[in-house]
C-alpha cells in the first residue's frame, strides 16, 4: 500500500504537476522503501557514532532521506546513491556543528548506547566509546567511513568534500591515534 493511496487528494491538480515537473522522479515509492531498508541502519550508525548523539542521529537520518528524495539522485546505481546519501548526511552534520550549540533535553549520553544494546560487550567495545570521544569529529568521520563502511580514499573525499590527496595522511594519523587510545584503554 502506498502513501498516495492512503491520502489520495493531497497531491492533486496543478501542485502535483508542478511537483512532478520540478524534479524528475528517479526513485518511486517502492524503490525508495527497498533502498531505505538497506541503507537506513548503516546511515544511522554513522551519524550516531560520529555525532555521539542518538537523538541527533534520528533527526539527521530523516532529514538526509528527505533531501535525498528532493534532489536529483545519481543514476549510476545504488552504490553511488548510497554515497550521495552519506554526503548529504555529512553536510548536515557539518552544518549542525557550525551552528551555536544549545543544550537539549533529548541529548543522550554515550552510556545510553551501551545500555540500549543490552548484550555483553567485549573489552574492545567498552574501550571504543572513550577512544572515539577523544578524537576530533572529522577523525571519527574519516575512520568510520573507511573502516566501518569500507569506503575507499576517493569515495571518502567525495563524501566529506576533503581533498583526495589529504585523506590518506589524515586517515593514517587518525587511525594511529585511535589504535593508541584503544591499546592504552585495554592496558589500563
Amino acid at each position, binding site marked *: 500500500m502506498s502513501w498516495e493511496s492512503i491520502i489520495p487528494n493531497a497531491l492533486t491538480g496543478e501542485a502535483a504537476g*508542478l511537483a512532478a515537473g*520540478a524534479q524528475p522522479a528517479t526513485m518511486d515509492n517502492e524503490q525508495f522503501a527497498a533502498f531505505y531498508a538497506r541503507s537506513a541502519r548503516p546511515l544511522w550508525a554513522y551519524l550516531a*557514532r560520529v555525532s555521539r548523539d542518538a537523538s541527533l542521529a534520528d533527526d539527521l537520518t*530523516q532529514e538526509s*532521506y528527505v533531501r535525498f528524495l528532493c534532489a536529483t539522485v545519481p543514476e549510476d546505481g545504488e552504490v553511488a546513491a548510497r554515497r550521495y546519501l552519506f554526503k548529504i548526511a555529512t553536510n548536515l552534520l557539518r552544518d549542525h556543528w557550525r551552528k551555536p550549540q544549545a543544550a537539549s533535553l533529548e541529548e543522550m549520553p554515550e552510556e545510553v548506547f551501551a545500555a540500549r544494546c543490552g548484550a555483553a560487550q567485549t573489552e574492545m*567495545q567498552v574501550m571504543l566509546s572513550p577512544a572515539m570521544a577523544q578524537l576530533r569529529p572529522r577523525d571519527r568521520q574519516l575512520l568510520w567511513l573507511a573502516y566501518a563502511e569500507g569506503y575507499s580514499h576517493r569515495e571518502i573525499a567525495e563524501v566529506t568534500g576533503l581533498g583526495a590527496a589529504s585523506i590518506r595522511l589524515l586517515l593514517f594519523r587518525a587511525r594511529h591515534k585511535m*589504535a593508541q587510545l*584503544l591499546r592504552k584503554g585495554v592496558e589500563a
Partner: protein
Amino acid sequence: MSPFGCVREREVRDLLHQGYWPKACPEELHAHVETCRICADLVLVTRALGEERRRTMPQARLEAPGALWWRAQLRRRNAAIEKMARPIFGAEVFALAMALVVAAAVVVWQAGNWGGWIRDLPRALHLDALLPASMVDSGGGALWIVVPVLATIALLSGVVVYLVSEKQ
C-alpha cells in the same frame, strides 16, 4: 614500507573487509601483522569499528519510509509553488513601484494647482445636480460634502485591503 603505509596494508584490509581475518589467512601474514605497527593498527581499528557498526545498527529508531517519501513530496511541491510565485511577486512589486513613481510625478507636476483642483471637484463630479440649490448657493460650494465622502472611501478601501490580505 613508507612512514604512512605498508606494502601489505591493502592485502590485510581486503581480508578484513571480506571477513577472512583472522581464521582464513596465511600464517606468515599473521606474523607480519605481529611485527608491523601499521598493519597492527589497521587490524585493531577495523575490527573495533566493524564490531561497533554491527552493534550500533540494530539500535536505530527509524521512521517509516512512506512518511519520509510523503514529506519529500510535500517539500518538493512547496518549493515548486514558491518558484512559480516568485515572478508574480516581482511583477506586483514592479507595478506598485511604477504607480508610486507616476503618483509622485503628478504631485510634483501639479504642485501649484491643488487649490483649483479641489475647488473644481464638485463641478467635475456634477454634485450640483445631487444637492439642493440652497446648499449649492451657500459659501464654499459642495466642498464640505466632498471631503467627508473622499475620507469615507479611503477608510473603506483600507478596510477592504485589510480583509483581503487577511483572507489570503
